[in-house]
């Protein structure tokens, strides 16, 4: 891939289930992220979709090292950041920032928005106090807020405005990569569109790269260049937006796409919804072989025995299904 920014290779994250005295040694493990590999090119947006519990947020948080991966490598600019510590980790965090889902919970209610936006600059000792305040004002203006409101507190702003503050904070250090973890899920439709447009404009202006995590397939389609679909900790399909939405190969992606109600009554009523039975299984005890097989409409005997790996089904389009036809065969 031309000009690679981030390469995630066989990333695994296990959590320990339960918090008993011996659970650390004997307890069950939840494998939240299992053998996840993908790449993001500079200036690109990779959408990461999946249902709750699919491991998409855990993946994002491993990359920014809010949680430490159990194994695997995360190469950013050729450097493995999965094992960074101390000063090197702090330096790395200048390159990668995150925008959270809930703007109410991710802004300190006792800090003014100026302090919130300045904080990254203070932590990394960039500029004098005056320069920091000037930078904060400029950032607020960049995200469409009035810089005169710099001394106000988060509760004085609406949900959409708070999300803009979160974005301004993420931009403060001029990062290369921003992880957007469900940044518009908590917002009303009309406000959601404002924030999506802002994210797109900022990407053009600052040359940003996004990992865009969301469960709303329409939003992901709008903002992404490529999309990865996760199910129960594994990536089941990854490809360009056109390939994934136009020609989904994995049975899970297909039913996911058929399940979104389309805002067009005629089209919606003529569509065939492919209903998946039941709920996703518990990640404490995932099914053997293909993790999707317990709900898959096309399941076969082989699916229980063999773990499917991502294989190329078309140029740049990968699918982890034993029944998918590999490209070129």
């Amino acid at each position, binding site marked *: 891939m031309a000009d690679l920014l981030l390469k995630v290779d066989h990333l695994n994250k296990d959590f320990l289930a339960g918090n008993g005295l011996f659970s650390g040694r004997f307890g069950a493990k939840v494998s939240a992220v299992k053998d996840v590999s993908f790449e993001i090119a500079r200036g690109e947006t990779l959408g990461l979709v999946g249902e709750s519990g699919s491991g998409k947020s855990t993946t994002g948080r491993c990359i920014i090292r809010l949680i430490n991966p159990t194994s695997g490598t995360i190469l950013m600019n050729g450097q493995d950041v999965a094992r960074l510590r101390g000063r090197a980790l702090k330096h790395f965090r200048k390159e990668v920032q995150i925008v959270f889902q809930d703007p109410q919970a991710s802004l300190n209610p006792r800090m003014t928005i100026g302090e919130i936006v300045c904080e990254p600059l203070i932590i990394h000792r960039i500029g004098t106090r005056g320069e920091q305040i000037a930078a904060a004002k400029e950032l607020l203006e960049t995200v469409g807020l009035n810089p005169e409101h710099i001394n106000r507190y988060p509760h004085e702003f609406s949900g959409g405005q708070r999300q803009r503050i979160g974005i301004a904070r993420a931009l403060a250090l001029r990062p290369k990569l921003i992880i957007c973890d469900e940044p518009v899920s908590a917002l009303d439709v009309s406000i959601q569109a404002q924030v999506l447009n802002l994210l797109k404009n900022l990407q053009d202006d600052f040359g940003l790269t996004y990992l865009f995590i969301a469960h709303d397939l329409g939003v992901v389609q709008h903002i992404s260049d490529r999309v990865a679909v996760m199910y129960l900790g594994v990536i089941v399909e990854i490809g360009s937006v*056109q390939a994934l939405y136009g020609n989904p190969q994995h049975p899970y992606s297909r039913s996911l796409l058929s399940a979104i*109600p389309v805002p067009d009554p005629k089209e919606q009523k003529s569509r065939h*919804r492919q209903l*998946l039975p039941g709920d996703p299984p518990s990640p404490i005890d995932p099914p053997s072989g293909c993790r999707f097989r317990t709900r898959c409409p096309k399941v076969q005997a082989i699916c229980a025995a063999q773990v499917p790996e991502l294989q190329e089904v078309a140029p740049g389009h990968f699918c982890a299904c034993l029944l998918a036809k590999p490209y070129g065969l």
Partner: protein
Amino acid sequence: MSASHDAPLLEVRDLKMYFHTQDGVVKAVDGVSYTLEAGETLGVVGESGSGKSVTVMTIMGLTPMPPGKIHGGDVRFKGQSMLEMTNKQLRDLRGNHIAMIFQDPLSSLNPVQRVGKQVGEGLVLHKGYRKKQAFHRAVELLDMVGIPNAAQRARDYPHQFSGGMRQRAMIAMALACDPEILIADEPTTALDVTIQAQILELMQEMQRLHGTAIIMITHDLGVVADMADYIMVMYAGKPVEYGTTDQIFYNPLHPYTWGLMRSIPKRTLDDDQPLTPIMGNPPSLIDLPEGCAFAPRCPYVAERCSREDPAMVAVEGIHASACFFSDSLDFLQNAPIYDGQRAEEAAAEGAGGRAEEAAAEGAGGHDG
């Protein structure tokens, strides 16, 4: 219940519900009207704070009063005013004739009671079942809404259920007494899409089987496109547009409805156009602007809009809009999908069944 037979199943007329708070009067519901007949689905669409939930809470008599106070209007169930009912009469109605499903199934189920007991509770209260009979029936209901191994799961507590299963249990509970009206307040918002699809399918099937009327409150235009026969769009406590689903989607009249439609990402694959959001934020319901509440955010605002408050006016058949310019064809050229052909198609197809009157008027309406 004694009721006249020609009265609609549910009729809400000019309902006004204000909250009197320290900061001032919040006009949470300000003049909402609709009627609902058996087997119909009404979709209520709007953003947070538009009053869509408070409307149905008021209908159910579940708003706290004070601070709430009804400032006018009426709610009639089969011709009988619900606002004049005693608490006992209301209790007899709720859960029995009108049932409700809430957005968050975890906080609306009792955590210390077995699911089966809660599902059967209405039967004990309203239908004179013994506890054992009710539990037995609850197992059947849980089985009907697709809970696997229902006899055993009925003995579980709500925390042992997944989100989708809790919502199914809520639906089983709501349907226990075979209600005539089911009010669903964002029933799938907290659920994943594949689970949402299961729940919507289930509600449609239950409607087919029992002829239940449904009021579906949601902010998701996809969900109403799927479920609703009629749609009401609300903004700042007031309805701004009402019509059949086809009218709202293919021939929307109100600039706020247009804004909502333009805000959702399009599903075409080569779409690189930026979205057209609605500028600004929804107003505070305490000090609403003079005139049309949407005027400060409306891209087509005229001088008149900030002086006078537009009333809901029927433009063609039942299709009504609260905008001064909804009857101007020039103005309607601004609509996102002003698509005459699509509207005519919809009108032609609707010629049978429920949409008949709408279709007849639709044919005479917009030929320009």
